[in-house]
């Protein structure tokens, strides 16, 4: 495995770059070609290039592509962390109820409750996601001396169910707005613009850096709490920092594009098979793979019913479900 590691890494980067380039030009109502990318680069170099194609790519395609890549990286890295913390290879970031909390908050706002509608959408998602994550972590005994993964998972399931119920109730109260909510709830990159990017990166970058710094600590945490303590790891700090990172990554993502399923669940196990279990390599590899995966899924979401758009969350779920079943079957062998 170690011998062809550089090849795998190069292949992964190639897939990502192809995806990024295609994502800028493919499936547009205005005809674009890969060749149009050159004047785009020229724009950044400073020499003219204000054609319609360049404008289109710069204002619509580029932010969407960047947002897709960053959200993919966020969710995959959050997934690796949640799986390391719970020592459960099939755990996903949705476990912490972040998506459900963000969705619930938005639904309450749409229903006109508590005057929440006055607040901007990303802020609402952020508040809801953080609140539900803290609730799940506290109820799940995460801050205790000896947390139990099972209790955390149960708390996550309970809180998610409660919040989803509230979300549905709020949607019934606001029938006229329900369609746009439904679109958001299935996870979509269609409304993404530069504003989304500017909301996304300030939360994502610290979250990603924090996660990458914890790589070696995650390796030692896999030996169990007693051994990790024996090796001088401050377990409580690792847990807290990792929780902060996961909340940052997931709330930022859900605020920009709604809950996108399966990226955080599927990318990490795929990368474990390709790159091994050393978190110092696994975390950056998952970030790149997650980015590539979501960029390509977004491309597909624009292409399958062109010129209509399918929410990208639907595509990741369609791609993800069979893969997940395969994974679950393999893990029980």
């Amino acid at each position: 495995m170690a011998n062809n590691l550089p090849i795998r890494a190069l292949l992964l980067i190639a897939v990502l770059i192809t995806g990024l380039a295609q994502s800028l030009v493919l499936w547009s109502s205005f005809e674009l070609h890969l060749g149009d990318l050159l004047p785009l680069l020229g724009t950044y170099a400073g020499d003219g290039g204000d054609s319609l194609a360049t404008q289109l790519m710069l204002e619509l395609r580029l932010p969407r592509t960047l947002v897709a890549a960053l959200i993919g990286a966020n969710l995959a890295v959050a997934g690796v962390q949640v799986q390391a913390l719970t020592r459960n290879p099939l755990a996903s970031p949705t476990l912490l109820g972040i998506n459900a909390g963000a969705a619930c908050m938005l639904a309450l706002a749409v229903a006109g409750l508590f005057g929440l509608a006055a607040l901007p959408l990303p802020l609402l998602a952020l508040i809801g996601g953080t609140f539900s994550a803290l609730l799940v972590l506290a109820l799940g005994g995460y801050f205790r001396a000896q947390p139990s993964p099972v209790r955390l998972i149960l708390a996550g399931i309970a809180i998610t169910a409660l919040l989803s119920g509230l979300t549905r109730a709020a949607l019934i109260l606001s029938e006229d707005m329900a369609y746009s909510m439904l679109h958001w709830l299935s996870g979509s990159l269609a409304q993404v613009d530069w504003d989304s990017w500017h909301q996304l990166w300030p939360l994502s970058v610290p979250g990603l850096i924090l996660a990458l710094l914890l790589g070696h600590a995650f390796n030692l945490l896999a030996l169990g709490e007693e051994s990790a303590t024996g090796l001088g790891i401050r377990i409580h700090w690792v847990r807290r920092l990792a929780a902060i990172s996961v909340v940052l990554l997931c709330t930022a993502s859900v605020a920009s594009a709604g809950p996108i399923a399966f990226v955080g669940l599927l990318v990490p196990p795929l990368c474990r098979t390709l790159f091994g279990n050393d978190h110092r390599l696994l975390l950056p590899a998952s970030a790149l793979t997650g980015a590539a995966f979501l960029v390509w899924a977004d491309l597909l979401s624009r292409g399958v019913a062109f010129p209509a758009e399918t929410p990208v969350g639907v595509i990741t779920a369609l791609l993800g479900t069979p893969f997940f079943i395969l994974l679950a079957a393999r893990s029980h062998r």
Partner: protein
Amino acid sequence: MLETRSLSAGYGRTPVVKNLNLQLPEGRITALIGPNGCGKSTLLKTLARVLKPLSGEVLMRGAALHRLDDRAIARQLSMLPQTPTQPEGISVRQLVEYGRAPYLSHWGRLKAEDRQRVDLAMRETGVHELAERPLSDLSGGQRQRVWIAMILAQDTDLVLLDEPTTYLDLAHQIELLQLLQQLNRNGKTIVVVLHDLNQACRYCDHLVVLREGQLVTQGSPDEVFDAELLATTFSLSAQVIRDPVAGTPMCIPL
């Protein structure tokens, strides 16, 4: 080297170990023995600071353990839990390398000296031929030696082990106890929780006998291990004879 002062410890708020004053002798193998639930594992975990004391303190070379820096402690004291979690998809060498963690930079990069230590630890425990094999391929006995290799790579003066023989067959139990003796001869102070009293008498220099969280007695096997101790502490009527091979005390249940 390691001592406890009015130490009470346990899970939650109820103490399992109560008001314990102990001094563990340097350069010896000390066995913690006692009936099930007597608090020997709890004591070991508190010494290894997996559990925080409810009251009292643990001192290492005179300094309160819970106030020292975690990495500094990890360079002097290592711990092998009863059931360490086996991480998935790593090789023997990778696991042993984790033993160097307290010496490494934050990112966990090994230097030449660290690699030498890792190789040495694998040779001392006889697992160097398995170095590139995945951990999951090994038998129980081999795996236990790999964990010991990890502890050795940690290069600490003090080694704590929680029932290291539990999942091993008799031959591998003896092999492991002999390995501990050899490490002790090379200068390590060892504290080990053992269930088998005859093994404790034969392979350890010092016995600490606990019952219901309190110290019953301590001393060398010759001094403390007799029929009366077995009757009062373990509720076992037994005869204590000399081990015909090693000459150490040995119990035969009646």
